[in-house]
Structure formats: structure tokens, C-alpha cells
């Protein structure tokens, strides 16, 4: 049963993530966290981090990760199949239409008009990741806010935008800083 659920969830994700890469993020969040509770928000944030640092698309990475966590290797395979099947179908159909009519302009205009909505969805997923980063235990309340995390965020944004540093390196730096902070706190602290 869990295998069918994994397959169907990732099939939906595969069907509706137009625009590549991050476009799958809000759908994964909705299916995996909100609907099925296969993963916590913090684990999801870790997953996006891991996906960014390893080769392969976020959706396929997420499918494997969630599949393995919930139902082992067979779960990973079921979820991955679900995730790539829509691609196989759509691409074949589009390739057929294209070789027949040599025209995709209506589709391309439709997709161009879809882009603002996709940006908004990615932004929403981004906000939830930031909330899980900034607030201790992921609870958005003033006394739970971690000033250190906001400092990392600001520094990371500066390195990305102004210094044009590689994103993987920037994330690595944030991770190392927090690890050093933790080590210092446990060894030197009261």
C-alpha cells in the first residue's frame, strides 16, 4: 500500500512541476509533509540542502530520500518511477506533436504565462524553509528567533549576490560556522 501511495504522490509531483529544478519544491512539500507526513519540515530543509549539493534533480533526489526513509529501497524505486513517468509521457507526446506540426508556440506562450505562478510557489516554499531555519524548533515566535541564523543568512546572501560565490561553498561555510559555534559552546561554555 505504501508503495502505491509513494508512486502516486510522486506521479503528481512529476505531472505538475513545470519550470524545472525548484518548481518541484512546493509540490514535494505539499505531498510529503502536509498530506502524508512522511517527513518533518526540518528534514525537508535538510533534503533540499542535500539535493543542492549532490548531482541529480531535486525531485528525483527527494523521491529516493523519502522512498528509502518510508519503505526502503523498493520505496525509493516506486517513488522514482512515479516521478519520471509523467516526464516520459509528456515528452513523447510533445515530441510527436512537434514532429507533426513543427509548432509549440501556444504551449510556450501558456508556459510563459505560468511562470509568475511558479515563482510565487517557489517563494512560498522558500519562506517555509527560512522559518524552519530562523526559529528554534521551527515555531515562528519572537522569543524563538535565532539571531545567529539570521546573521548566517545575511552573510550567505552577501556572498552569493556580491561576491558571486558558488552556492555549495556558501552553504558549506554556513554549516561549518554553526558546527564551530556548537563546538566552542560545548567545550568553552559554562
Amino acid at each position: 500500500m505504501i508503495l502505491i501511495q509513494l508512486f502516486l504522490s510522486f506521479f503528481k509531483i512529476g505531472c505538475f512541476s513545470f519550470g524545472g529544478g525548484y518548481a518541484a519544491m512546493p509540490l514535494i512539500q505539499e505531498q510529503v509533509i502536509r498530506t502524508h507526513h512522511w517527513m518533518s519540515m526540518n528534514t525537508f530543509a535538510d533534503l533540499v540542502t542535500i539535493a543542492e549539493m549532490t548531482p541529480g534533480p531535486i525531485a528525483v533526489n527527494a523521491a529516493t530520500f523519502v522512498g528509502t526513509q518510508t519503505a526502503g529501497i523498493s520505496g525509493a524505486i516506486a517513488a522514482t518511477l512515479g516521478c519520471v513517468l509523467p516526464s516520459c509521457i509528456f515528452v513523447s507526446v510533445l515530441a510527436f506533436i512537434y514532429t507533426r506540426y513543427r509548432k509549440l508556440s501556444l504551449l510556450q506562450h501558456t508556459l510563459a504565462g505560468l511562470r509568475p505562478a511558479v515563482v510565487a510557489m517557489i517563494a512560498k516554499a522558500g519562506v517555509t524553509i527560512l522559518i524552519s531555519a530562523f526559529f528554534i524548533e521551527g515555531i515562528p515566535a519572537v522569543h524563538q528567533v535565532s539571531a545567529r541564523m539570521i546573521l548566517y543568512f545575511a552573510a550567505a546572501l552577501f556572498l552569493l549576490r556580491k561576491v558571486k560565490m558558488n552556492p555549495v561553498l556558501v552553504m558549506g561555510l554556513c554549516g561549518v560556522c554553526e558546527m564551530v559555534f556548537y563546538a566552542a559552546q560545548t567545550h568553552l561554555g559554562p
Partner: protein
Amino acid sequence: MDQTKRQKLKKLFLSTLYLSTFTFGGGYVIVTLLKNRFVDQYHWIDEEEMLDMAAIAQASPGAVAVNGAITVGYRICGIPGLIMAVLGAVIPPLVILSAVSLCYTAFISNPYVSAMLNGMRSGIGAVITSVVYDMGKNVVNTGDILNMAVMILSFCASYFFNVSTIVIIIAAASASMLRAVLSARGGKEA
């Protein structure tokens, strides 16, 4: 199956396997790499056709990297080519993420690892903020009021009213298609 076709399928599988293992940073990079391999090195596809395939890959839902591999595989060897290309594209993330997933469960309880992942969450938050900023700026730069309205409305619907991503994507796509059809009827390009 004759010898040359089997040879081609093997080459196709190994190429997508290789590209998928060593491509960090997702979809748009891999289209260029597919072109290098299949147009410039193997001469299986001509340049113009590759551009059309990239358009199809980007117009289809799902990961652009997988879609790109599918279009190329299908074009070169039909359905067996499609299957080989998909396998090549998903096996690396499947193997890597299964391993990561097992390590994650084993190491997440380690306070140093969890501190590092905590810090990296701020980093990935900054990476996504930067991506959203660029994408949002592109939408605003089109100067199209309707596009901006769609972006803001989608965000509000999703963030404040918890409307599902799939519903928003379908609504935005319908509106956008209607607009594309109307403007095509009106005789001017949208």
C-alpha cells in the same frame, strides 16, 4: 536487435549515466552537456534539432535533466532509447541518495552533524531567496501588469489561504492559455 543499435543504446546509457553523475546544479547545465556529447562528439543529432529538443524538455513537467535525456534517447533509438536514457539519468541520484538517506538516519543524532545541517539551512534559504529574487525580477521586468498580479495572487492564495499548488498551477495555466489563444486570435503575439 542488430549490433549497431545495441552499441548505440549502450553508448546512450553510459552517456546519460555519466552526465547525471557529474552534473551539479541541475537542469539548464545538462542541456548544454547533452548537446556537447550528442551533437558535437557523436554527431547523432544536428544542432538545430537539439535546440528544439531543449525546448520540449523545458516545456514538459518534471526535471529538465531527465526530460532532456528522454528527448535525446527517444530521438536516437525510439522507446528502447527512451528507457535507457531514463535509467542512465536516474540511477546515479537513486544510488547516491539511498546512501545519503541511510547516513542521514545514522548521523542526524550526532550533535555536530545536526549543528552543521542547522547552519546549512540558513545557507539554502539564502540560495533560494537569491533564485526567487532573480526569477521574480524577470517577471517584473516583462512590465506586464497581469503577470505581476498572477504572481502576487498565487503567493497570497498559497501562503495565506493554503490553496494547493496543483490547483494554483491548473488555474494559472488555464488563464494563461486563454490569454495565449485570445492574443493569437487578435493577430498579435503575446
